[in-house]
């Protein structure tokens, strides 16, 4: 017997709507749950005092600093490389075998799981180059990890700059490089910053690649060669070792708020960028 299309339509819509609601409900539940349990713990004191007794008591200040410094370092390394790559791909060359190889490499790098970055960072930066578990090792590892994101978003942003802008610049006698830094990059900036923010978000939430390269030290780093612990790693340690449920939720709440804020900024910038382009 054939079910009339009218009913399959209704059934399909009901099932699809149900699935969508489940998805949204689960994801929002996670955020709600963490904020509900964590926010009461969070206070000025929690944010800005040092942990005591391995994190069982006290605040999270050093991990907060770690979660700021590590992404900053990673961006400082990855942004020049990523934007430079994007500029080369868009402004200095046509599609050749070389660009294909570069794109292929970028795609592959983007697919590598973070634990492999952790392994690599550990054997190369920590052990072979002798940087130890440190801000520097962690920053370099994360820089490689977010490089593909920055290359891709920058490339898209640069390609979106209208060709006429460049032509005007050339016709005024500017060289290619002058055109890039005075015309192309300023116009592509919001798009580039979007990529950078997404990279920052990934760095803040990353654990596997950080724990083996930046280490676990629960104190303020004095130099780039000091080990740091990020909030994500701190949360992991607190939960895994069962040190403090309260402080774990507090850390998770700050972590989620930080990541959401960074990502929201990225989306807001992207939308403004798109809006300006279509005007």
């Amino acid at each position, binding site marked *: 017997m054939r079910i009339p299309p009218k009913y399959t339509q209704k059934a399909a819509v009901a099932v699809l709507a149900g699935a*969508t609601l489940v998805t949204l409900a689960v*994801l929002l539940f*996670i955020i709600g*749950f963490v904020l509900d349990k964590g926010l009461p713990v969070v206070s000025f004191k929690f944010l800005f005092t040092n942990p005591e007794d391995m994190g069982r008591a006290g605040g999270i200040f050093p991990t907060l600093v770690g979660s700021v410094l590590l992404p900053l370092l990673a961006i400082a390394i990855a942004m020049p490389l990523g934007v*430079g*790559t994007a500029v*080369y791909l868009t402004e200095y060359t046509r599609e050749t075998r070389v660009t294909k190889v570069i794109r292929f490499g970028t795609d592959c790098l983007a697919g590598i799981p973070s634990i492999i970055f952790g392994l690599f960072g550990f054997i190369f930066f920590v052990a072979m180059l002798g940087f130890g578990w440190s801000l520097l090792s962690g920053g370099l590892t994360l820089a490689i990890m977010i490089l593909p994101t920055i290359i891709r978003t920058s490339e898209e942003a640069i390609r979106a700059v209208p060709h006429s802008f460049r032509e005007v610049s050339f016709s005024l006698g500017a060289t290619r490089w002058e055109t890039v830094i005075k015309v192309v990059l300023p116009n592509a900036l919001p798009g580039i910053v979007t990529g950078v923010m997404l990279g920052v978000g990934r760095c803040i939430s990353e654990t596997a690649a950080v724990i083996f390269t930046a280490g676990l030290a629960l104190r303020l780093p004095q130099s780039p060669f000091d080990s740091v612990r990020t909030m994500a790693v701190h949360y992991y340690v607190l939960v895994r070792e069962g040190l403090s449920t309260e402080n774990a939720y507090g850390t998770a709440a700050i972590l989620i708020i930080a990541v959401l804020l960074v990502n929201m900024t990225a989306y807001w910038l992207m939308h403004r960028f798109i809006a300006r382009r279509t005007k």
Partner: protein
Amino acid sequence: MKLNREKVVERLLLGVAFSAIASLALIAVFILKEGVPFMLKVGPGNFLLSSDWEPQDGKFGIYPMIIASLWITLGAMFIGAPLGVAGAIFLNEFVPRSVMRIVKPTIELLAGIPSVVFGGIGMVVLAPLIRSHFGGPGLSVLAGSIVLGVMVLPTVISISTDAISAVPNTYREGALALGATRWQAVHMVVLKAARSGIVASIILAMGRAVGETMAVIMVAGNAVKVPHSALDSVRTLTANIALEMGYATGMHRQALFATGIVLFVVIMILNSIATAAIRRRVGGKGNSKK
């Protein structure tokens, strides 16, 4: 002088442009350098197909971890793929644009929730639920699958949505004009046209699930044994690396790098399939536009 600077800049940029591929090569070289001699010494067969993982006795078999990764990944896809694709279809085809414009970014924002948080919630909320309702240790294949299934949802939805919205509107209009209902138009026409993009989203999600580490460590229990049911505690390939990396030395450490190679190869294969699928879609789109 000016021209000279231009040349220097161009050279510099060409060098910079190789940073990604150089990093990739460096990663491959170092992982292989540590892992391959070990694999040759132990024998790939022994390494991949033996169930004995006792590093202190020189026994390095990762078969249980391979099976565990496989089960958890398939389980995650069983949960994440239908939910995610259904969500993508619903948001694209049955919901006003204005709603979609709010819901899609929300879901993409949720992709940013750190994996440790997913793991933590799985450990605190989900595992006890499984323990009390189904028995077993709670930290299990099932818990891992559910957590990873939820974690990959944003990936599946976001990429499937792109694939579905890339299907030209004329396809839908054609089907509707022939008297099809909205759902008939969707499953007979739109989904067929968007198929390779949807498949790509699922395969990319598989890659993410196979490679996920921290969340899995927190919810899968980490026992080294071949699971007999979904309620058994297991250790995945990624968990094996992360759990023992801290203290492993010598052969043991090399064994972990060799585990990394297995992971690397699996994920490269998955990603190549996904990339090929996406390319095909783009090719198809080009053809339909003429």
